[in-house]
């Protein structure tokens, strides 16, 4: 049954803004992005929102709904009661451009800081061969749709703007892990993860995992294994001695 829902939507830009109240129709089966589009069509034609696929696969419509980082297109209205006020704001970690649209270029800067896939020098493209069992760990991380909700919710940068230089965020530490685990990647990712990407700043409170719409176990499968590899190198003299004595490689 259609009903009128109470919405609060943040309107503004870098100069300032506020939460504005709207009363808007909701129909069965709709998601929050549908309601935002209805607002654009009926009450706020200049409301800015970034969106694309409406299927939870492009990662464009990231925002915060009732304070929780979510994809607007994957947040069903049926999860709210009809009496509940639904508050929609832009992501609060990145600079705002206008209304629900933020400048996520921080993430592209961090992406460029991760050295790309580095196959063996004597292996030509087309000759890559690997066992499924060896590549499967990296494949989980390939599900990432780069919605940057994990980057947005990570308190290291969300609550401390000054950490943005030193910390790449969970998405790009996961990218380092993806390449580190890749059977054909020859680059040494571990020192860079700790030093350049700021892995030591992560205190594994798992918010990145909680908000991931692809349900990637970022903390357990990427960040903690990378922390353990750093511990191998920097904090475990036994592993260090063993690798020297027995010349063990991975």
């Amino acid at each position, binding site marked *: 049954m259609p009903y009128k829902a109470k919405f609060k939507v*943040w309107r*503004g830009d*870098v100069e*300032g*803004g*506020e*939460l504005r109240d709207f009363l808007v129709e909701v129909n069965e089966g709709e998601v929050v992005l549908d309601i935002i589009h209805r607002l654009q069509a009926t009450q706020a034609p200049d409301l800015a929102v970034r969106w694309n696929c409406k299927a939870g696969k492009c990662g464009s419509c990231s925002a*915060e709904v*009732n*304070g*929780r*980082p979510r994809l607007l297109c994957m947040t069903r209205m049926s999860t709210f009661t009809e009496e*509940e006020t639904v*508050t929609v*704001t*832009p992501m*609060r*970690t*990145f*600079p*705002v451009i206008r209304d629900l649209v*933020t400048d996520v270029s921080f993430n592209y800067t961090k992406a460029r800081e991760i050295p790309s896939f580095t196959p063996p020098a004597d292996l030509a493209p087309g000759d890559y061969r690997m*066992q499924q*069992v*060896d590549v499967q760990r990296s494949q989980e991380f390939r599900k990432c749709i780069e919605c940057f909700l994990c980057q947005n*919710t990570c*308190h*290291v940068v*969300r*609550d*401390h*703007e*000054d*950490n943005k230089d030193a910390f790449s965020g969970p998405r790009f530490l996961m990218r380092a892990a993806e390449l580190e*685990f890749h*059977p054909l990647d020859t680059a040494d990712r571990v020192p860079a993860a700790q030093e350049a990407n*700021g892995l*030591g*700043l*992560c*205190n*594994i*409170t*798992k*918010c990145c995992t*909680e*908000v991931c719409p692809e349900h990637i176990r970022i903390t*357990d499968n990427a960040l*903690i*294994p990378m*922390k*353990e*590899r*750093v*511990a*191998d190198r*920097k*904090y*475990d003299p036994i592993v260090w001695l063993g690798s020297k004595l027995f010349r063990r490689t*991975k």
Partner: protein
Amino acid sequence: MTSGVGAPARASIPARTLRTDRWWLPPLLTNLGLLTFIVYATVRSFMGKWYVVEQYGYLTPFYSPCLSESCLPGSSHFGTPLPELPGWIPLGFVALPFLLGFRLTCYYYRKAYYRSVWQSPPACAVAEPHGSYSGETRLPLIVQNAHRYFFYVALVVSVINTYDAIVALTHGLGLGNLVLLLNVVLLWAYTLSCHSCRHIAGGRLKHFSKHPLRYRAWTLVSKLNVRHMQLAWTTLGTLVLTDLYVMLVASGTISDLRFF
């Protein structure tokens, strides 16, 4: 709040969080749970009595191994190489610091107390109260990287606890034996589900296909690892339950239910 969500250029929203759910409840429950265990464990560790039932061979894990001449008869399964201890030193002092270290540096407990005790952050998308943050990059928190060493010692202590449970079985079978065995099984599950164990078992490899046995071990530990949080809390409960049962039987408050 000028450096976090209130930083210039971000959307101007005065509220620390706009979450409408009870986000404060999990950290509150975590604090209560941890505080309860710490108070109980501290009191029992320093109590110095009712930790062994000689007749049935029950020994509480809080006093194992008991290596001092101060230990009551039947509690020293590995002899008494240490002299009598003053009352302010817990009789389980050999293992307790390492078990505490194992849990303090555990990846799950870190998440739990960073969120609940240190509020960093108290919940996802709820601004933390601290003005600066350096994570685990400097002392004292850089010591968290020593988790694997505590894991190694915890393995030894698990073997000792298993031995204690087996020794108790040589005295017959009672409800206390089942409590001790349940505790030991869950302690093993918690210890083996540790993230460092997962890494050591096979996680550090790049090519699983070259190490099929270690891959198998990694797979098994990974299955347990998914339950690490549940096991962390369950074992706190079974440690208290086991100790409480031994204390009640040892003090004569209840009698052990004997099967044979």
